């Protein structure tokens, strides 16, 4: 029975990861690769459609309509703004405030835009902004601003003013919008576009395809020197559809299931374990590939925001676990790294409002700098090492719960925790110093007590205290397991807290919001878990005896 459950779970995971692509004809192939200038970047229309549908509806699939179906219906006519229930409002209190029904999540753009309470709040925000006043800390302002952005985007799409697909005249760099039909140069393009849309609406896919191709070549011919190559657009569309990071977390999850189960199925234990490792390596390869693809598309190392750093840290943890595994051949390494990576990648994959997956242009201070890339990658790699220690630390704590008197497994796990911390300390020290080198290079000062710098230092000091405390025997094996959790609080603050909680300093380009309450709750629960295990170990009298 148990085997069956695991096998079916694995099968279901493989299916949901879209590992087997149906070889059906994709009618959106041609429209996907049209180039649009959006948020300072040239991207395929596919990316634009995905991002906007996700932003407006909060979903990529709304009542059976795919993002392309939704997007093209919005492009088709301004009626979509009036009639289509697509703009998502979920905040219950806010819906109450606006007098919207509880059981509905999506509304028409028009009904929201004409909502008197929304108008009133929007006006108030505008007034406050004009007077340079801070918005009061109240959900209604935050929600109103978010809703306004959604409406603005939907309006821009239905009126085609936001569809900046027409390349600029030579010498300019601002792409022109399809909605600008008063421009004699754009009018014929707009006509072609209308023909294309009507072919789509009639369900005439051959014509839709050929009209799109025609539109594409007309757009290219308007200014072929600035129009990006078809290959670069195809590459990004591929990245969008391939979803490498989703595939890798699914493979890591499969590894986790298999590696855990392997010893239970005695007969095929070894064989199954090998399969688990294979899936792990496959996940890692796809993870790496996805990372490289993103680098190529963005034209830079993905070190610009929280989403990218989460992906990178998860990758680092897997890499380190593979290196350690090659040396020590202990499956606990694989288990803990895959747990951490699966959690990290699932979060990255499913929280677009907190961890924004869109590829953005870099803040000026971050542009084209070797030291920056090295410094960020080194520091975040140290987070990966500490995260690996954290994962192993949890395994150790579970082991302590099972055998509060200590065991051989615990001895081994303790070694790995320590090693992970050592690697982390080296990388964090080096990364912090490299940060100084970069700051010196671009700002003319080595160290400036910037909060991000300071928190990296605090995290480093925390682990240094742990390593020294271990050295003089203040920390027992159990103490080290606890330290792996407590020490990570410094990393959490340096990595997430400075950007999302403190929100000050020169590293403000990575600032974001959201998730603070969840992170705090999760941290509290984790510490509670540590406390409970400590209580149990203490009762058994093991806690106060010295290290073996």
């Amino acid at each position, binding site marked *: 029975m148990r085997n069956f459950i695991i096998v079916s779970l694995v099968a279901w995971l493989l299916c949901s990861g879209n590992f087997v692509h149906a070889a059906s004809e994709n009618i959106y192939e041609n429209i996907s690769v049209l180039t649009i200038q959006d948020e300072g970047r040239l991207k395929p229309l596919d990316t634009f459609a995905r991002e906007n549908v996700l932003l407006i509806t909060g979903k990529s699939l709304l009542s059976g309509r795919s993002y392309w179906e939704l997007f093209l219906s919005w492009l088709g006519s301004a009626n979509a703004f009036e009639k289509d229930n697509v703009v998502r409002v979920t905040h219950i209190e806010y819906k109450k405030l606006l007098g919207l029904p509880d059981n509905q999540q999506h509304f028409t753009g028009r009904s929201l835009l004409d909502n008197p309470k929304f108008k009133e709040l929007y006006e108030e925000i505008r007034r406050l902004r004009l007077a340079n006043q801070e918005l009061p800390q109240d959900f209604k302002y935050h929600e109103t601003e978010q809703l306004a952005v959604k409406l603005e985007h939907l309006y821009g799409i239905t009126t085609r003013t936001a569809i900046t697909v027409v390349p600029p005249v030579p010498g300019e760099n601002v792409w022109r919008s399809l909605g600008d039909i008063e421009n004699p140069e754009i009018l014929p393009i707009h006509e072609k576009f209308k023909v294309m849309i009507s072919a789509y609406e009639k369900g005439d896919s051959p014509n839709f395809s050929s009209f799109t191709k025609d539109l594409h070549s007309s757009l290219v011919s308007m200014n072929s020197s600035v129009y990006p190559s078809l290959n670069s657009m195809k590459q990004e569309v591929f990245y969008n559809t391939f979803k490498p990071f989703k595939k890798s977390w699914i493979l890591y999850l499969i590894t986790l299931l298999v590696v855990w189960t392997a010893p239970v199925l005695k007969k095929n234990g070894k064989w199954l374990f090998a399969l688990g490792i294979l899936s792990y390596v496959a996940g890692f390869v796809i993870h790496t590939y996805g990372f490289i693809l993103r680098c190529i598309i963005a034209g830079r190392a993905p070190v610009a925001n929280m989403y990218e750093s989460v992906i990178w840290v998860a990758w680092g943890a897997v890499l380190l676990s593979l290196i350690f595994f090659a040396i020590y051949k202990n499956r606990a390494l694989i288990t803990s790294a895959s747990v951490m990576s699966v959690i990290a990648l699932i979060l990255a994959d499913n929280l677009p409002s907190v961890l924004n997956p869109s590829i953005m242009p870099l803040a000026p201070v971050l542009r084209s700098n070797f030291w920056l890339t090295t410094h960020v990658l080194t520091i975040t790699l140290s987070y990966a090492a500490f995260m690996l220690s954290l994962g192993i630390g949890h395994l150790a704590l579970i082991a302590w719960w099972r055998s509060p008197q200590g065991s051989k497994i615990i001895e081994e796990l303790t070694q790995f925790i320590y090693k992970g911390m050592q690697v982390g300390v080296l990388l964090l020290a080096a990364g912090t*110093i490299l940060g100084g080198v970069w700051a010196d290079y671009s700002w003319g000062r080595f160290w400036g007590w910037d909060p991000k710098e300071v928190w990296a230092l605090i995290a480093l000091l925390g682990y240094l205290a742990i390593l020294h405390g271990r050295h003089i025997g203040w920390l027992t094996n159990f103490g080290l397991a606890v330290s792996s959790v407590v020490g990570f609080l410094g990393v959490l603050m340096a990595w997430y807290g400075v950007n999302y909680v403190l929100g000050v300093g020169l590293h403000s380009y990575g600032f974001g919001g959201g998730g603070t309450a969840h992170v705090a709750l999760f941290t509290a629960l984790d510490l509670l878990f540590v406390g409970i295990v400590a209580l149990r170990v203490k009762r058994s009298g093991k806690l106060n005896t010295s290290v073996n």
Partner: protein
Amino acid sequence: MQQNFWQKLFDFLASIKLAVIVILGLAVILAIATFIEAQYDSKTARYLVYGSPFFIAILGLLGVNVTFSALKRFPWKKDQLGFLMTHAGIVVILTGSFISHIWGIDGSMAIAEGDASNLVIMDRQMLFVEFDGGAIETFPVEFRWSPPKPGHEFTKVLPDNFRIAVDSYLHRAAAHENITNTGDTENPAIKVALLSSKANADGWLFADEAGRNLLSLGPLRVRFERAANLQQLNRFLHPGETVGGGELGQLHLKFPEGERKIDVSGNIDLPIKLPDLPYTVTITRYLPYAAVDGKKLVNKSKEPVNPCVELTVKWRNKQGNEEEEKHIVFARFPEFPTLFGKQNAGSNLKVYYEFIPPAASNGKQLLFIIDFKNQLHYRLWDGKKKIQTGEAKLGNEVETGWMDLKFSIKEFYQKAKSKLEYLPAPKRKGMTEQPPAIHLIAEGEKEKIGFWLLHGESQTLNLDGKKVSIAYGNATIPLPFTIQLEKFTVGRDPGTNNPASFTSNVILDQSGVFLHKKTSIYMNNPLKWGGYTFYQSSYQEIPGQPTVSILSVGKDPGRSVKYAGSILLIAGIIIMYFFKKFLPKTNV
């Protein structure tokens, strides 16, 4: 016994236990500092923690601990190489940081386009006092975290028993004008209120004060003037002619030596030698609709939307050399500094441009006049014809006939006296902070004067017949070379308004050394010269003025020491971990 004590002290200072305590203590203090920074700002965190003596003492203790721990293990064995390098690295980095802290310079430089500067503005506030033509004395003042209070004034004694004291400090000061009827001379002022169902507005007008006799209140332009005789009063009450100095208005020039008025019409490009004053004024340009295009002030239309005049003032200074100042003055923005971004040659000229829109325009005007019997009259005027005139009585509400707009005179002072005071201002987000202000008391043998001084301003007093000049601002350090800002450009992300790059094109000049170097400073590309590093920090754009580029200036004599320490540290960790078996040990 003695031996034993020193041995014990040494052991304690070299102990790993002390190391753990210091490391954890440092971590906690740093964490608190970041929260202080989030709550207040980086300057506060720097003052209270990072730059404070106790923090430097803790770092010193860490240095001692690390040094002693290494000395304790002498004579060193081969396998301690990694340990030694790591710990030596920390000591070297701390030493380098100390050198930077003591001898380093961290300031900024603000240069307007077309201007040059050699002054590094430091983040330290100073009082500059020049007493009776003597040398300028400077006093460092840092009131933000320890503000002076009455009874605990910051006091400095000057020669001849003169003294100055600071008895109040506002970190963010907002100017507040206190107008009372307690002046010594005639100075009629009225407070006019406009009332309507939509909004109310009010403001003060001074009949005799240039630049303050005009006001835009809601949809109306309001003006207050004085009738010296019956003829003027009649002209006011029975209008039909244009008002005040021809159709292009007039310039009101206030020199320390006296005041003069010049008509703009007919005087453009003609040098005017001012009678009885040593100045020659030339109106170089008249712009009816001044606007900034690119970096230049241009005229956009013939309609007087934003009338503006450019003028030059020439005179001979005490040494007999010719001096010249160029001013730009806007009729609608009398409070705008007319010398902004221009060379100040020291004429101390205050110039106002009084411009009444010509009768042909459609501006709705409300005009007041005070007659020789100190009675007030008003005239409503829509630009073409009189709508109504009458006597304006204090407190009466008068219908204007424009929508439901009413006006009333709330206050009428014949001897108005205006006193500028400062009040604490709330914090503004996303904007430049309001400057700080101090309240000073200057005291001589006989006289005592109290006044406010805004950061960046100066005041010259006459105290017991002696001249005392006091300025309040940031400390500056002169560089042996100048930087001239040729051009400042902001690049944006294509298709957006996000600034993508800021570039200052500068010329470096050093007299003595033959140097005239053109270069650009932009993000990640600082200029390094003479031990100083200049990097692009920010900029200020003010309409009608040249853009000001703000460069950060740093000098770090500890740089190479810190780099050496860093290399030692990292190499040490690598050797310790990977070239020597460093397994967890149970005890020392």
